[in-house]
């Protein structure tokens, strides 16, 4: 149910983001979703890619600091209130969201949103009882 996300520590220097994307391109790795959290001095680039293990190894080899984290890719109804419904479920269960970002591409009629949640396993159980669809890594990559 969980999907591997890659996080890369990038100093705020011109050309650093380009170095990351170029390294991934050279290794034929496809980026499916990304977000950047930034501070004054550095940023954290978070990505869902088609092959996280290969991406981590390529980026580490290129000198980047990379971490793998488990996140959830959740199908969200593509209509007003779709996202609100999901977040309400989590809020009512007292589960905090660390961060989230949207996915490039859709699954059928629905959008996909990546969630980083503190109690991932608990969240999976609760979301499944509410018939929320959580995508696996394989499903994501075959979209």
């Amino acid at each position, binding site marked *: 149910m969980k999907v591997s*996300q890659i*996080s890369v*520590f*990038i*100093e705020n220097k011109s050309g650093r983001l380009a170095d990351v994307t170029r390294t991934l391109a050279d290794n034929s790795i496809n980026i499916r979703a990304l977000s950047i*959290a930034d*501070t004054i*001095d*550095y940023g*954290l680039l*978070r990505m869902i890619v088609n092959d996280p293990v290969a991406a981590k190894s390529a980026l*580490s080899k290129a*000198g*980047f*600091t*990379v*971490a793998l*984290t488990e996140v959830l890719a959740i199908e969200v109804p593509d209509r007003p209130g779709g996202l609100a419904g999901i977040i309400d479920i989590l809020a009512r269960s007292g589960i905090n969201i*660390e*961060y989230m970002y949207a996915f490039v591409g859709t699954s059928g009629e629905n959008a996909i949103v990546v969630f*980083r949640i503190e109690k991932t396993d608990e969240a999976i159980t609760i979301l499944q009882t509410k018939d929320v669809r959580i995508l696996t890594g394989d499903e994501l990559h075959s979209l």
Partner: protein
Amino acid sequence: MYYWDKETECMDRARLRTLQSERLANTVKHAYTNVPAYKRKLDEAGLSPNDIKGLDDLEKIPFTVKNDFRDNYPFGMFAVPMDQIVRIHASSGTTGKSTVVGYTRADVDTWAELMARTLGAGGTTKGDIVHNAYGYGLFTGGLGAHYGAEKIGASVIPMSGGNTKRQLQIMQDFGSTVLCCTPSYALLLGESAAEAGMDLRKSALRVAFLGAEPWTESMRREIEELLGIDALDIYGLSEVIGPGVSYECMDKHGLHINEDHFIAEIINPDTGEVLPPGSIGELVFTSLTKEALPLLRYRTRDITFIDDSQCPCGRSSVRMHRVMGRSDDMLIIRGVNVFPSQIESVLIDIEGTEPHYLIVVDREHGKMDEMEVWVEVSPDLVSDEVRALESLERRIARELHSVLGITVKVKLVEPKTIARSEGKSKRVIDRRDLNQ
């Protein structure tokens, strides 16, 4: 020209030499008898205290270094029992342990006398209001200047550092005539006053005694211009006594060394060879009158030269040029001594950081020194959450603050981005312009 004790300060040099010789012989005996570390050093050099009869024997004495203080931490260098110690101060050591110094009642009196000479050389009298913005505490600056000013009979305002707005308010309301602080703080006071629409040139302020950090002639001109005062350089280090080791007269050409209390030598820092006047090298001090902490040929690591020509002011003492640099890697930030090794010891204890770091020191115009420590993050540390990294930065900054006593900005950088050089890596980028 102004003097506090003209007779002593202008003492005939032949008489001074005789006095130094007598005092040196006594100091060596005192140190040998009462400090095991000195006994060991002299024994190892095959010297008995009786071999040191006068100045000509000085060169035979082995050097003392900062690490001798570390090895005998905290009170092992003291030559009197603790019931005779009335004051303890401390400054940074090269590692976790500070350099601890002690004073007997007579030492405190000597120190006050020397600071009275220092302040007196700029014309301070009992009619003055002395605004003392050196830090009070373990640092010798605050209490050193305080006791000297009290000895003169001036009215001392024990401001200590910080809270610039309040400093300016009090300076204006109380009519401060004499300022004691670091040169960069004097500049900051001047700039802040100007920003607040206050013209210090029109204030009662007349003279400033600035020290505890390196500065330049161009900074002097700027401070004198901005504050409308005479800015005099003062020098000292806690191991020797604190401020009051040497001081400028109104001629402003080098700092008069209080030679009746300290012998100064300049050595080649690599070979230890004593160099003649005028040669640039490392400054070495031997104390002549101190009871609690006699000091034999202490290597200050400060680089300068000695001018033995007669000063127009009439004082007979030799003058040292303002400190030109260091023969070790010590930095002075806002008057606080910082060794890169202290930073390293903090980082080693924090998991998630690499022992690769870079210290960047800067002094923006009219501002105080800023120190940034760049730290490489290790791969196992990088999280996907910004707040985890921010909390790591805060933790490093907090621990550095507790060890160094100054606020440091921590910046996390990518691994392998700090240059590795062969052998000793380049740990410090000092952007301050400290050589005019």
